[in-house]
């Protein structure tokens, strides 16, 4: 037995595909650095601390939404109600933040709670019915917009307390609050995805729902969790936005879901589920921010900017589909 070589024990080499797909994943990081270097060579105004602060602050709201939708897309779902959740939660927070009636934790908790309930409702309908997430969240997108208008009676809610306005407009040790929130949430979401049982289950459910079920995973609990987290993150985005513009706007956040989904996809999250990383999504969101900032600095009209952004999204998906093969 010892001198026969068993062909089944020969190690297989890492396949060509594995290597190509790794290259594809690195591609977005490389692209991001290339764009940054190029912009700093073209315009000296790009690589300055104040400009970079502006970019990250602007990116923070989209990034928070993108983190949530990354969880959802990894499980094979989608969440189109993000923008409406931003409006609902922003309005709810604003209602409790008028002047100094309550301490600042009250509007924050109220906003978060409304996002949690909204997200849980998405998850509940998706897991209890056979209706696809695309349709369910398309419905709740409209419901959410209506709720925001009802709660605010169709008018902006202003005169918010200073402590509330600090969340989006204040600074801590010279760093804008939205950046701090972004960094903390990035860390939390990365840990959830990579280091917890729930995170692993997300990949399993999105990668092969049946195999996940046969492994004893409670599929519905995982789905409830991701839509609820998506709602919580949307609420956080809603609070930051409301605080930054110092107004609860029932019309805020329209179309935000598309930017968030774009960030996740550019960052390598596959729309077919089962793959994706928080780092990729963060880079995706930053890339969108950097490019639009760069085009602003170069005085490119916003009409052209939209065309450029569309090309980037399609390019990223082409990269993704090459990886899938």
């Amino acid at each position, binding site marked *: 037995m010892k001198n026969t070589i068993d062909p089944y024990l020969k190690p297989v080499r890492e396949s060509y595909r594995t290597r190509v797909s790794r290259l594809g994943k690195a591609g977005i990081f490389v692209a991001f650095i290339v764009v940054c270097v190029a912009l700093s060579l073209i315009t000296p105004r790009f690589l300055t601390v104040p400009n970079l602060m502006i970019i990250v602050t602007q990116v923070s709201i989209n990034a928070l939404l993108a983190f949530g939708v990354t969880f959802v897309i990894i499980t094979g779902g989608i969440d189109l109600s993000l923008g409406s959740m931003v409006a609902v939660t922003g309005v709810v927070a604003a209602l409790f933040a008028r002047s100094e009636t309550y301490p600042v934790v009250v509007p924050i908790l109220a906003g978060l709670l409304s996002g949690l309930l909204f997200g849980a409702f998405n998850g509940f309908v998706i897991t209890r019915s056979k209706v696809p997430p695309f349709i369910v969240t398309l419905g709740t997108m409209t419901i959410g917009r209506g709720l925001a208008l009802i709660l605010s009676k169709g008018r902006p809610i202003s005169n918010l307390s200073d402590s509330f306005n600090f969340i989006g407009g204040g600074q801590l040790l010279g760093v804008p609050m939205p950046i701090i929130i972004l960094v903390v949430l990035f860390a939390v979401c990365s840990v959830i995805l990579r280091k917890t049982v729930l995170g692993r289950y997300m990949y399993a459910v999105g990668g092969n729902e049946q195999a996940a*079920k046969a492994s004893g995973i409670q599929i519905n609990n995982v789905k409830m969790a991701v839509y609820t987290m998506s709602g919580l993150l949307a609420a956080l985005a809603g609070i930051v936005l409301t605080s930054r513009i110092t107004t609860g706007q029932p019309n805020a956040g329209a179309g935000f879901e598309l930017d968030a989904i774009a960030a996740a996809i550019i960052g390598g999250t596959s729309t077919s589920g089962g793959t994706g990383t928080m780092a990729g999504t963060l880079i995706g969101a930053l890339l969108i921010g950097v490019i639009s900032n760069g085009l602003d600095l170069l005085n490119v009209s916003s009409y052209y900017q939209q065309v450029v952004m569309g090309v980037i999204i399609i390019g990223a998906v082409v990269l993704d589909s090459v990886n899938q093969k």
Partner: protein
Amino acid sequence: MPFDRDYVLTIRGLTKTFSGVKALDNVELTVRQGEVHALMGENGAGKSTLMKILIGLLTADSGEILLDGHELKNGDVNEAMKRGIAMIHQEIMAVPELTVAQNIFLGRETTGSLFGWLNDNHLNQQAKQLLDQMGISIRPDTRMKYLSVAEMQMVEIAKAISNDARVIIMDEPTSALSDKEVATLFGIIRDLKQKGVAIIYISHKMDEIFTIADTITVLRDGQYIGTRPAADLDIDRLIAMMVGRELGSLFPESSIRKGNEVLSVRRISRTGAFSDVSFSVHEGEVLGIAGLMGAGRTEVARAIFGLDRISSGEIRIKGQPVVIRSPQDAIQYGIGYVSEDRKGWGFVPRLSVKQNITLASLPNHTKGGLLQEKSETDVATKMIADLRIKTASPDQHVLYLSGGNQQKVVIGKVLLASPDVIILDEPTRGIDIGAKAEIYKLINQLKASGIAIIMISSELPEILGLSDRILVLTKGKQAAMLSKEEATQETIMAYAMQY
């Protein structure tokens, strides 16, 4: 080799490299007119690569392909098709919403009218002629989606014939066919031979090969091993050529040390699937479940594992009645299930070997809510060694493993949840003979360690070689419970076809 008129296809010195790894190394293949030429080899031997090059999907690095003595342009699908090479794929590639006739003439629609409007009547007539010639009674205006797999295959063959195919490649054509349908297919193949069409036939089923093939060519690890007339070979010699070594006995003797009863079911039924099934299985025992396709074997397994509900009856674990509502419940009660559908219910392709192995027991690898990578790696590495899983590393995606190794990953996952009883549903389906031997060895090891095993299989040699007792199901009913001594291929088949 001198050019021979008889040879419709001659392949010489074909080499194909994928990023430094030789998939084909100086391979040759010569196929005569009107012969069925079996191409044999284990998974990964290079059969599909060779066929993909032949139909122009891949480009060879070097070597030549002669069709009727004339060189075939490398890597050109249209050229290969025009020159008469057709492939009947393992998974049927047809447009389900189009009719049979529309599928047959897809891309070559001829018009019967002056202005070039499409004319379905004309198409249907042409298709009917063709199908009649083949002796197939399928209506040409039926939509493809309403056909059985066997019928779809016939249509694919009709399409190839209408294309004046000289060489038809059939890749595992019988994998989804019943015995009767296989007979029909073989009839068609014999007709094609009469007409001088050459068939390149790929299959893992030995009995089929010896029934239908005239000549057999064997590949191993991308190398050409040899070509022999089928009449000069028998199963053992062919296997020796394929694996390059003697396998020894596929079914080693195993001791029976039957222990306590682990699982028993009493008169369990599920409406529309099976009724009144009762059996028990003990520690260190293999209970085989035999039966024809559709006898309800998988349905029984799924119900015990909580994937489906039973409508009546009782399941007992170690004597205690239990209610199993979900796979979580089943796993809690110490039941493991390895599905017949490895890709569908077995593994998550884009998770690594390690992540798949720990998937059913993940909470055991956490500390303070966080996953412990090292603990996962340790357990997975041990399982990879124990089950002899051939993988580059524990972090390789399962997607890239061979069928046999994917199956071992699934078994490893189930074992890690430390089951008392394992249900193996067609554990060797679609994996090659070397890997089968490994799975058999593994089953005997599990048995020796005191695990109770329920094994469902359509391969009678497997059932007879491994089982201590055999339950035969027929049309959802229990036909017999046979002891090892009573069971033969004949008795099992007699019970399986009863009613």
